[in-house]
């Protein structure tokens, strides 16, 4: 758990300092996620798309993102990611794509996706290592007439950008960025594929429009279903969440020449007293210049900082998806028979507030059981076995919620999605693919998932009873006829007049149930929406065939009844909302 262990971090950092950047990268590809050809493609797309989404979000722009992967040869792919974001200041382009920085790119504390990324320069490096081709970046800021195009490599000896081409071009876009790379990789479908990543990204970002063309030429279009750009509230970093590489850069870049002021101004939750205490323990005087610390001093200060008592970051800085968005997204993507979502209240883990959001969707286009995991709105595709989300769900007895299990596997067409949002999420490793299963986090997930499962259970029970609705009327009719005779005896009235009343009342009940069928069975609603009233009638009649068999009513009477209910629905436009 590197985020948790300053020592391990420091070791990594030292190692990183000693070797050349390319050498380090080649030997430690797995640390950055490039451990297989399949994963290399995913990681590259993910890095670029996440950056695009972050850029748009920060500029308060509704993202339009275009992703295309083209197979150039058996194992070389061209990846293009284009956005309508604010563009990159032209002079910054070489630095961003052509120099390799350790740790987070932006030492800012905010629920951005980029914090989980590896930095775009890692893709540049991977590209030049595997295909010897530069990264191509076109970017345009809103106030420029022309866009600028760069072809960049990294000078691996001194970690500086190597600009192979730089020219102004015209681009019929107000602003935006388009990145193209050629990388050696492998394209697969199904689980852990780019296709899946894009789908899940669309799910978590209902405010984005995403167009994706995969190497097989299939095009996926994910529409924008929300016009609200999620708000990111920036906060100074919490000292417990910072990585040592970022910490060093903060020290180097700070405008403060006094270490005490640096601690108090640049970090969240450090006051005068805490600052003095930290400096005393680190053996530094309070007017030391932070920009001139030695490596050992930095290391010591970092360790002390991790132990310091600092209050938790308030939950208002956490960016959640929100219940409505989760429901809307799940509905848009899977058209489920049942969907619900739930947002837990903020909880605290090691001084960091976090919020768990859960959604479930059942049926519709879903054909198997799947757990979808998110950390700060980024889908987690790997290492599900060691993730808090998977562990928490595995700890729940799903059978208790009306689900069918065979050999421990859920057989229902069900998606459970869990999102953990926090300005600092504890991952199990530097590749940030699984959330560490700490008891506080597990507990929150469990409570959230159980809550939505309880709602699902009610739906499943209702569904079950609708499926056996014919049986219900057989029972009611059978017992109803039986009791008519005795009720007649009791009241000294004729059996037939009681029967008449009982049947009439059973028919009323049937009307209510037909309404329930329409409300509860998607297929029926679809048929009605599409104007296929006869098919809808046949569908309902089939469910209720016992009603005719037991002579509660004739086929004609039942048809008339069904027709009336459907008419009522159409008049009230009860089905409109779904369109």
């Amino acid at each position, binding site marked *: 758990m590197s985020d948790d262990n300053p020592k391990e971090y420091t070791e990594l950092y030292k190692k990183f300092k000693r070797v050349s950047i390319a050498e380090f990268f080649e030997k430690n590809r797995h640390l950055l996620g490039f451990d297989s050809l399949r994963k290399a493609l995913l990681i590259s797309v993910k890095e670029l798309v996440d950056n695009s989404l972050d850029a748009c979000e920060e500029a308060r722009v509704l993202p339009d993102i275009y992703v295309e992967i083209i197979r150039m040869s058996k194992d070389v792919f061209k990846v293009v990611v284009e956005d309508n974001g604010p563009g990159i200041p032209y002079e910054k382009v070489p630095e961003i794509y052509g120099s390799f920085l350790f740790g987070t790119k932006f030492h800012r504390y905010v629920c951005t996706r980029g914090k989980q990324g590896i930095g775009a320069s890692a893709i540049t490096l991977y590209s030049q290592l595997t295909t010897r081709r530069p990264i191509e970046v076109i970017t345009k800021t809103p106030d420029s007439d022309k866009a600028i195009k760069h072809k960049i490599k990294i000078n691996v000896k001194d970690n500086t950008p190597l600009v192979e081409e730089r020219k102004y071009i015209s681009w019929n876009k107000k602003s935006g960025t388009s990145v193209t790379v050629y990388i050696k990789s492998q394209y697969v479908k199904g689980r852990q594929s780019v296709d899946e990543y894009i789908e899940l990204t669309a799910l978590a970002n209902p405010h984005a429009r995403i167009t994706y063309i995969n190497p097989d030429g299939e095009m996926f279009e994910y529409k924008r279903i929300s016009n609200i750009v999620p708000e990111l509230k920036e906060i100074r970093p919490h000292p417990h969440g910072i990585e040592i590489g970022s910490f060093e850069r903060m020290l180097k870049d700070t405008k403060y020449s006094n270490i005490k002021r640096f601690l108090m101004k640049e970090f969240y939750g450090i006051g005068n007293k805490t600052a003095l205490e930290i400096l005393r323990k680190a053996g530094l005087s309070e007017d030391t210049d932070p920009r001139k610390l030695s490596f050992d001093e930095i290391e010591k200060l970092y360790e002390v900082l991790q132990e310091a008592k600092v209050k938790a970051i308030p939950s208002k800085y956490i960016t959640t998806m929100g219940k409505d968005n989760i429901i809307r997204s799940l509905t848009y993507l899977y058209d489920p028979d049942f969907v619900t979502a739930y947002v837990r209240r903020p909880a605290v883990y090691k001084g960091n507030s976090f919020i768990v959001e859960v959604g479930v969707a059942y049926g519709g286009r879903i054909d198997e059981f799947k757990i979808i995991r998110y950390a700060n709105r980024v889908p987690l595709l790997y290492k599900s076995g060691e993730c808090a989300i998977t562990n928490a769900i595995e700890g729940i007895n799903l059978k208790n919620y009306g689900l069918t299990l065979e050999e421990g596997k859920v057989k229902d067409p069900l998606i459970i999605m869990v999102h953990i949002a926090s300005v600092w999420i504890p991952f199990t490793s530097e590749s940030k693919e699984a959330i560490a299963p700490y008891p506080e986090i597990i507990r929150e997930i469990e409570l959230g998932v159980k809550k939505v499962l309880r709602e699902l259970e009610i739906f499943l029970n209702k569904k079950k009873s609708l499926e056996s609705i014919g049986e*219900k009327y*057989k*029972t*009611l*009719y*059978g*017992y*109803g*006829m*039986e*009791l008519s005779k*005795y*009720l007649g*005896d*009791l*009241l000294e009235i004729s059996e037939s007049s*009681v029967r008449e*009343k*009982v049947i009439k*009342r059973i028919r009323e*009940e049937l009307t209510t149930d037909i309404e329930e069928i329409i409300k509860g069975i998607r297929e029926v609603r679809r048929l009605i929406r599409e104007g296929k009233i006869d098919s809808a009638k046949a569908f309902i009649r089939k469910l209720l065939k016992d009603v005719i068999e*037991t002579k509660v009513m004739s086929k004609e009477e039942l048809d008339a009844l069904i027709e009336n209910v459907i008419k009522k629905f159409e008049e009230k436009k009860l089905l409109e909302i779904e369109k």
Partner: protein
Amino acid sequence: MDAEKIEIKKKIEEFARKIYEEFEKGNPSFKFIIRGNLKYVEYDPTKDLIKLKKSYGYREFFNLGHTRKFTQTILIAALAKKLISENRTASLREVFYQLRHTIPIINEDTFYEQKESDSVIEDLERTLNIIREKIHIKADRRGYVYGNITMRDRSRGDEWNCSKLGMGGWGVPSTIEEIEILDINADFVLVVEKDALFERLIEERFPEKHKAILISAKGQASRGVRRLIHRLRYEHNLPVYVFTDGDPWGYYIYSVIKRGSMKLSHFSELLATPDVKFVGMTMDDVDEYDLKRVTIKLTARDEKRIKELMEYPWFKKNRNWQRQFNKMLNKKIKIEQDALAAKSLEFVAEKYLPEKLSNPDRLLS
């Protein structure tokens, strides 16, 4: 037909009327008092009775879990009305056979076994708040009474004295509402758990020698026996003593006579006799009469039951009873009332009971 019967018939008709009207409009349902169990009863320490914490349940025709029982209850109600009108009484088993048939369409029997109809009869009792005997449904006779007491069956006009019916005495029916007590010549009532002891005491002429009314409960006392005890105590002011085995089952027989049962807790005030006293067998008897060698070892089931009884509020608050239970648990023994025969056959009549009854203040209560 007397006023009470007319009243009961009216009650049944009202029950039916309400359901009929709800079929017209609304949700056909009826309300009943939930059957007593440890959760739903409470102990009233001032009256020394178990009473039902009134909680109500509902049966609804349109609730598929209720439909069958709902219908069955109406069947029983219809039969009850018929019995009252015809002035006939049916046994529980007869009720079952009268109503048992197959329902067409669903191809299910109205009742598959007597247990099912018995429980619906109890439901109806708790719906109408009338004991089943008043709707002319009775259980088998259980328990006997012997002694100088003259009774009359109001509806038949027969008269008899319970000491002149032979050694078996008079079998107590499940309802004694029609029985008048014309004359009693006795000082107290002794209820014994077992028939064998009942006969032993008659053979020894105990009722005559001690002016006692002797009742055999034959295990757990039936409703009729409990009602008879209640009437002898409160209508004729006789002290009542209970004599059972010295085990948790015997002690619970005593408890039911005294405080009512949980199942019939809604009728406790009619059936229970709070000031009865307990003669034996006590754990102290084992020492006092030197009966250790004729005790029986407790089974695991006995021990479990003792621990349950100790937690019942009416036993829990009573130090003397707690002492008996603890003694039983510590020594891991129980003792039958028949064990007194180890001394001699007449010992119980000649020595044990006279000694015990001569000092009623020392008895457990």
